[in-house]
């Protein structure tokens, strides 16, 4: 009897010991992963500068943008370069999206019918900017297994019934540090629609995050959009007044 208790105690001790060890060797905390993914580039308020490159078989295009965001609800993106398009801005407040064109001094609201259309000619859609989808909230996720190269885990997230959105399933690859490496988006018909890759992990604005995102749509083929964060400030001081149409129309 005493021997049995001892073995059980030893086993229990061993389990506790390993349970508190480094995350790498153990079953990952799915909830923590999803939270990290949701909040990867978010904070109460952020200011960032990024370069966006669109490559297609017939042309290439480079934009430099400055972005402001407040929570999940408000965002402002202003093009800084090239000079021809400088000043063109996109304002998001809730579900609404407006484009401001400085050359004609007009603000135009993007209609719902164009939400799945390309944002400023990139492979990101207007919907990508507007949608406040959350991996934790809108998807049922599970760990599909470990991954060898890079070392990490594969996660499959399936959209919860009743959630409106384009993606029925997202297959993700995250590192042991809970950073995304790759996400594959599958539409409602179950077809792969696009692949988003994350790399170039650096310290930026006090966070260690991937600073280069590459979006490759399946259709049209040969096309990709690359977004590279140049600088970022998280938990910055961004006044609410930044996100208004009148503010938008003032020259930036």
């Amino acid at each position, binding site marked *: 009897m005493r021997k049995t208790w001892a073995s059980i105690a030893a086993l229990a001790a061993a389990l506790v010991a390993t349970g508190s060890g480094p995350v790498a060797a153990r079953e990952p905390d799915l909830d923590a992963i999803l939270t990290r993914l949701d909040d990867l580039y978010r904070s109460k308020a952020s200011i960032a500068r990024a370069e966006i490159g669109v490559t*297609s078989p017939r042309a290439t*295009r480079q934009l430099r943008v400055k972005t402001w965001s407040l929570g999940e609800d408000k965002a402002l993106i202003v093009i800084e370069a090239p000079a021809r398009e400088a000043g063109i801005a996109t304002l998001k407040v809730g579900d609404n999206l407006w484009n401001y*064109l400085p050359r004609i001094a007009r603000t135009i609201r993007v209609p719902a019918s*164009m939400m799945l259309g390309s944002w400023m000619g990139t492979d990101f859609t207007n919907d990508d900017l507007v949608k406040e989808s959350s991996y934790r909230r809108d998807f049922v996720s599970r760990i599909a297994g470990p991954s060898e190269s890079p070392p990490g885990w594969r996660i499959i997230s399936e959209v919860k019934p009743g959630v409106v959105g384009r993606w029925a399933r997202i297959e993700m690859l995250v590192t042991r540090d809970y950073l995304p490496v790759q996400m594959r988006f599958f539409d409602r018909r179950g077809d792969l629609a696009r692949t988003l890759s994350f790399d170039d992990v650096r310290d930026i604005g006090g966070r260690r995050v991937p600073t280069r995102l590459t979006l490759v749509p399946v259709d049209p083929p040969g096309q990709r959009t690359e977004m590279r964060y140049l600088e970022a400030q998280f938990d910055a001081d961004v006044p609410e007044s930044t996100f208004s149409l009148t503010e938008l129309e003032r020259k930036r």
Partner: protein
Amino acid sequence: MTKSSSVIRLAWRNLGRNRRRTALAIAAVAFAQLIVLFFCGLLNGERDYLVDSITGPLIGHAQIHAAKWREDRGVDRVLPHASALLAHVRADPTVARACARVYAPALAAVREEGHAVVLVGVDPEVEAARWGMLEGIPPDALPGNQRVVIGSTLAESMAVRAGDSLAIVGQAADGSIANDLFTVAAVSKNPVDLVDRMGVLLSLPDAQQLLALGDAAHEIAVRGRDVQASTALAARLSADPALAGMDVAPWNELVPTLATMLQVVDATSWIILAIFFFAAGTGVANTLLTSAFERTREFGMLLALGVRPFRLVRLLLSEATLLGLIGVVAGSAVGIALILVLHRTGLDLTALSPNPEAASGMRVGGLTWSMRFYPTATVGDVVRALAAILFTGILAAVWPALRVGRLLPTEAMRS
């Protein structure tokens, strides 16, 4: 005198003997021919209208595009040096008209609300003519110099009027964001449904400048002299070395669903015509059969007098042929005259249509139909109808003739 001429003379005299019966029979045949010919003309006229409404103003008889433009309508899939290409195409003798166009999706707003639209850049001079996209628009309201024309349905959904300022945002051919302000010169009901619902018509130079296209265009729409020769026209242009590598297609390849619908309409028209023919033919047969039966006693007497049955049959057939010929000729004459007159003036049955105010026709099944008929018929149509009716008449006479041949004179005289 040969035997056949004497039969004819006899037949002729027989017909003359009972004027009223003969006249009735001739009238039946003539009327049948008239009906068949006239409805054939109406159906032809409607078909011509359907083809015209499909092939022009947007489609034309054939179109030229850059390879793969039709797949994704990429703004950067262009026909470079469009003006030179256009001049080259217009030099072809089988080409009646050619015009260059530019297409791009865009966002348009008159106030704050944006609407998804399609920009269509057209040459105002060429397309203001008949079968153009701008037909019917007064010259001072044509697009050009930053002025645009909007489809009536789009104008209604955007609540926009002539004189309003329209902001347009789109993607230029080099990928950059194209944006500019335009004035609405006119709101016009465009015959092309898509353009009316979503179209903003710009002048070709305005569109080329907005979208950074230079001298390029997306489409050259070609019109030949005869729509039936469209496939040949497309093949001819396709073989032209100056158009190497470009996608040249005739209208039935460009809108295969409409082409198929037209085939369905053709098949239905045949059925309708067949029904008319059957009705008309029945009238002819009825009249001839009745008159033949009326004369049974007369035939019996002839047989009793020694006329051989075979000669009697031949006599009857000759009568029917003479009758038939006079009848179809008379019917054709009236029919042709009627078609010629109505082709000029048109037969206006719009009062019968569900929406009499819709001047430019009703849309049913993706096709635009007209209740104003302009009948047309070819010589072939006339000859075919003529032969068919004549044949029916003679056939209608055969049976009683055969029956007569087998009669016993006594039976015949008694009936």
